[in-house]
C-alpha cells in the first residue's frame, strides 16, 4: 500500500465554504508524547522512529482503544528541525538494523515513512487508510479530521515527529558550501536566518503602530511559565528555568528585532493523537474533544517575504474561514493557542483572530494585561514552542487537555474552557483547528 500526500482539496482553504460538513462529528480521544531531548544521542531507543512508536503507543493507551480497531494513520514524513545527515558520514547501521527497515536507509533516523511505522508496530495490523500530511502537526490533524469525517477511516492515529542532530541549525547543506544555485541565491545569498522574515514584519509593525520589542516581554514570561507547567515539554523536562523580562531584554540578537528567545529551540520529540467519530468517541476512556472546523491559509507573498499588509490581509481572511466553518464568532473563544515559533508573529495571529476584540496594532498592548491561565483572557496557555521547544504541536495538545479538564497545573481557571482554536505555523500559510468540549 503506497501512502500518498494529502490532496490539496482535503484542506479547507477556500473562502466562504460555509459550515464544515463534519462539524462536531469528529473527536480527539487520545494523546501521546515521547520524551524530549535537545539532540539525538545516537541510541536506538531515542531515534526518531523509536520516539514515534512511543508517542503512538501512548496515544493508543491514553484513548483505551484496542489497537486492532485502528484503521487509519496520518503522519508528516519530514522530521528535520533543520538538521540533515551529513554527506559522507557512515550510516548508523547498529541503530538501523535494530528495526524492520525499508528501502530508505535513514528511515526512522532522519525521516519517517508510514511503511516503516507499520513494519515496526505489528499491533497496527488493520490500518487501511494512510496519508501524508507534510508540513507539521497542524496540517496532519486537518487531514485526519477530514478523513474521519469523510468516512475514509473511523479511528485514525496522527503523528508528527522531529529529529535534531549535532551541529548548528540550518548551517549544514547549502549554507556551508562555497557556491549556491542561481535561483535560490536570489533569496539566500544575503545570509538571513530563519526568523528574518518575521523580524522584518515585526519591525514594520513597530513602526506602523508605535510599538517596541520590549512589549513582547510579558508574552514571553507567560509562555515560559506555562511551558514549565507542561510536563511533556523540553524546558520542563530539561531546563526548568524561569524566563524574566530582564533575561528577555538582555538576550543577544539573531536578526534584530528577533532575539535568541524569539527563536524556538529545536528539539527531538514525537507527538500523536487518536481521532475517531463522535459516535465512537462517546464510550471511550477520555472525554472527547470535538472538532468544529479545520481551515487553511494558502496565501502567498508577492515579494520575497510577506509585507505587514499581506500578513494582516491573510490573518483576517483566515479568521473568517476559521469562524465560518465552525459556526462561531471570536466571542465564542474561551482561549487561543495560536502558533508562536517565532514568537514575534504570535501578535499577528492574535490580531487576525480578533481575540477578545483586539484589532490590528493592539496585541502588544493586550500582552500588558492579564494573559495568564488564571485570568479572564488566557493567551497561549500551552506556552507554545517558546515554553516547551520546537514541536509545533503543544498548542493542539493543550487545547485537547484544557477542554478535557486534564491540563494539570496548566489548567485555566479564570474562565470555563469550552471552545478554543490552535494552529500555524505562519500567519501567511498555515492550518488551524477549532476544538470544542461539546459537539454543537
Amino acid at each position, binding site marked *: 500500500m503506497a501512502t500518498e500526500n494529502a490532496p490539496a482539496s482535503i484542506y479547507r482553504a477556500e473562502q466562504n465554504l460555509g459550515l464544515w460538513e463534519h462539524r462536531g462529528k469528529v473527536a480527539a480521544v487520545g494523546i501521546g508524547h515521547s520524551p524530549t531531548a535537545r539532540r539525538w544521542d545516537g541510541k536506538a531507543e531515542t531515534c526518531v522512529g523509536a520516539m514515534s512508536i512511543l508517542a503512538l503507543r501512548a496515544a493508543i493507551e491514553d484513548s483505551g482503544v484496542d489497537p486492532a480497531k485502528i484503521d487509519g494513520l496520518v503522519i508528516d514524513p519530514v522530521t528535520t528541525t533543520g538538521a540533515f545527515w551529513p554527506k559522507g558520514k557512515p550510516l548508523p547501521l547498529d541503530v538501523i538494523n535494530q528495526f524492520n527497515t525499508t528501502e530508505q536507509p535513514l528511515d526512522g533516523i532522519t525521516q519517517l515513512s508510514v511503511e516503516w511505522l507499520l513494519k515496526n508496530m505489528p499491533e497496527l495490523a488493520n490500518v487501511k487508510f494512510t496519508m501524508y500530511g507534510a508540513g507539521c502537526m497542524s496540517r496532519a490533524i486537518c487531514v485526519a479530521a477530514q478523513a474521519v469525517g469523510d468516512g475514509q477511516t473511523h479511528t485514525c492515529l496522527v503523528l508528527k515527529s522531529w529529529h535534531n542532530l549535532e551541529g548548528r541549525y540550518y548551517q549544514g547543506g547549502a549554507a556551508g558550501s562555497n557556491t549556491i544555485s*542561481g*535561483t535560490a541565491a536570489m533569496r539566500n545569498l544575503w545570509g*538571513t536566518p530563519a526568523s528574518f522574515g518575521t523580524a522584518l514584519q515585526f519591525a514594520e509593525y513597530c513602526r506602523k503602530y508605535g510599538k517596541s520589542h520590549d512589549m513582547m516581554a510579558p508574552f514571553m514570561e507567560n509562555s515560559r511559565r506555562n511551558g514549565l507547567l507542561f510536563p511533556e515539554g523540553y524546558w520542563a523536562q530539561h531546563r526548568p528555568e524561569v524566563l524574566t523580562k530582564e533575561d528577555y531584554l538582555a538576550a*543577544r540578537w*539573531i536578526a534584530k528585532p528577533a532575539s535568541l528567545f524569539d527563536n524556538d529551540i529545536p528539539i527531538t520529540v514525537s507527538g500523536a493523537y487518536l481521532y475517531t467519530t463522535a459516535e465512537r468517541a462517546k464510550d471511550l476512556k477520555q472525554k472527547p474533544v470535538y472538532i468544529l472546523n479545520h481551515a487553511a491559509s494558502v496565501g502567498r507573498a508577492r515579494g*520575497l517575504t510577506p509585507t505587514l499588509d499581506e500578513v494582516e490581509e491573510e490573518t483576517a481572511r483566515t479568521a473568517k474561514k476559521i469562524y465560518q466553518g465552525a459556526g462561531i464568532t471570536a466571542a465564542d473563544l474561551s482561549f487561543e493557542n495560536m502558533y508562536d515559533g517565532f514568537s514575534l508573529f504570535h501578535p499577528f495571529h492574535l490580531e487576525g483572530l480578533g481575540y477578545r476584540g483586539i484589532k490590528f496594532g493592539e496585541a502588544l498592548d493586550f500582552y500588558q494585561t492579564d494573559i495568564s491561565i488564571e485570568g479572564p483572557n488566557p493567551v497561549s496557555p500551552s506556552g507554545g514552542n517558546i515554553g516547551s521547544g520546537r514541536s509545533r504541536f503543544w498548542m493542539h495538545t493543550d487545547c485537547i487537555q484544557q477542554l478535557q479538564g486534564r491540563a494539570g497545573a496548566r489548567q485555566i481557571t479564570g474562565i470555563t474552557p469550552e471552545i478554543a482554536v490552535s494552529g500555524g505555523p505562519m500567519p501567511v500559510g498555515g492550518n488551524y483547528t477549532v476544538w470544542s468540549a461539546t459537539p454543537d
Partner: protein
Amino acid sequence: MSKQGVEPDELSRPFWQAANANKLVIQNCQQCDRLQHPPLRKCTACGATEHLEWKPMSGRGQIYNYAVVHDGPIKSLHEDQPFNVAVITLEEDSGIQMYSHLPGTPVDEVPIHGNVEVIFQATDNGQKVPEWRVVD
C-alpha cells in the same frame, strides 16, 4: 562582504548574465505585463508558461524594510556580522523585492523609504550580483 559564489541555473541564467554586464533584468509576463521575482516557470497571475521575458529595469528603488543579522547561517558571512539586510522595492513595481547588504550604510542606521540605486558586486566565484547603494 564575501558572498558565496553563484552558479546560475537554467531558470535564473539570464538574470545572472545581465548582472555580469552590469544590468538588472527581472522576469516579466508579457501577457499580464507583470513582473515576478525570483523567476518561476510560469506567471503566478495568469499561469502562462510562454510569454515570460526578461525586462530591463531602471536600477532605481527604495528601502522598504530591514533587519540586522547577528547570527546567520552562511559561514563566509560570519566575520561580517552584524550586518544589514534591507528589502529593496523597485521603482517599476513596489511589489518586487530584492535583498541588499546596503554597502556603505552603517549597521542599523538604515533610512527606511530612502532611495537606492543598483550596483554590481562580484561574489566569491566572480559572478556579479545586484546590490544597492543609498543615494540622496
